[in-house]
């Protein structure tokens, strides 16, 4: 599931090392590499396209500020650092008590499907998306979060553990419960 090829590992390590030296080009490359994942993560947490856009921009800026003023010794990977900042940014966003628009808002249709996909896969994505769009917000936020990180953005258990500050065992249990909860929500809809 979350297999990282040696080439990707090399790329990530090299980027992170360059970022430790506050390299601007490396940060732009990191943006290209992770913007989709971070945007998706934010989108599934806040449920709104525009706010996901704004928050993603803020997250990357905050990350650069953090990189400038820190040695990055407390983070193992760049991905983990981005998700940590994303989480705190989203928490701040909720604290500011902005009107929360959930994923099941009928008027706010998701229009972010990649245009390069073929028609069949778009249909498949649409149906899956439709179902999960309705059901995902009904899940507890921590369930939703681990499902997105593990199965959508394909993070390893180690990375999720580092991001959330929970043990790997706890993450496993959380994933198991989250899958069970989601299945219980989806199955009646399918039937």
């Amino acid at each position, binding site marked *: *599931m979350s297999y990282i090829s*040696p*080439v990707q*590992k*090399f*790329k990530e*390590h*090299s980027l992170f*090392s*360059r970022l430790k*030296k*506050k*390299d*601007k*080009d490396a*940060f*732009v490359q990191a*943006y*290209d590499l992770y*913007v*989709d994942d971070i*945007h*998706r993560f934010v*989108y*599934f947490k806040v449920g709104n396209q525009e706010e*996901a*856009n704004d928050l*993603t*921009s803020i997250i*990357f*800026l905050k990350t*650069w500020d953090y990189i*400038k003023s820190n040695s990055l010794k407390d983070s193992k990977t760049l991905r983990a650092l981005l998700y940590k900042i994303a989480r705190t940014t989203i928490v701040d966003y909720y604290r500011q008590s902005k009107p929360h628009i959930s994923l099941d808002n009928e008027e706010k249709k*998701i229009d*972010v*499907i*990649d*245009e390069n*996909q073929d028609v069949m*896969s778009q249909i*498949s*994505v649409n149906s*899956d*998306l439709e*179902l*999960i769009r309705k059901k995902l917000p009904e899940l507890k936020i921590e369930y939703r979060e681990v*499902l*997105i990180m593990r*199965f*959508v*953005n*394909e993070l390893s258990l180690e990375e999720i553990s580092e991001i959330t500050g929970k043990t790997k065992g706890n993450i496993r249990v959380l994933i198991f419960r989250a*899958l069970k909860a*989601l*299945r219980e929500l*989806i*199955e009646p809809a*399918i039937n």
Partner: protein
Amino acid sequence: MTEKELVAKLNNLKNIKPDSQWKTSQRGILLSQIENTGVADLSAWQNFWIIIKSVFSAVPQTAYFSFAIILFLTGGLWYGRNLPLNPNSSLYIAKSISEKTHLNLIFNESEKTQLAMQYAQEHAQEIATTMANPKFNQTDTSTVNKLNASFKEEIGKLKNSLPKTDDSIVVSADSGKDANGLSVYDPTTEAVRQETSTVEPVVETKNANQILDEAQKLFDEKDYQGAVNKLEEAKSAIQ
């Protein structure tokens, strides 16, 4: 719906991506915002060092592990023959394999034979030394029997490796005989023959054979120390 199907559905959500126009414009904004932060570019040396470190971190641990195993096996094959192991040791097989590998890597036939002789002689000597230990000799009967057989085998190998002596008379131009087979004394040729004579090695070969026979006899009579001494004698005779 199985868990696998559910995971596949969730995985499908990976296709959700932000609008590419937004991404491009956002990239430009980000670049302009970080451009004037006054951070110096990396030097070529720093970049090189990062690449080296990243290569090492990217290589999977299994690759390091496999490399370590290969290194261990190669080292074992090459240096295993120098290990001070007894023939009753379970690792003795590693030593034998190492010796065989080393022999197979030698392409000069005479060198190969010489080395094979040396190994056989060493084996015989090791067996005799092990057998000389009464503690071992009286307890482990099955190993003792095996070592007895091995000793005979090694002595046989040694004997086979020794140069063959030919008893038939060969008449050559330099034989010191005339056409009728009668000895002709010529002081000049006699002096040359004495200098270049090959009689000496034949005598040594015979000696080595005899010594080996004696060593075998002593071994059979359970005089292991005597056999060890004889093998030492054979060694110097062969040399």
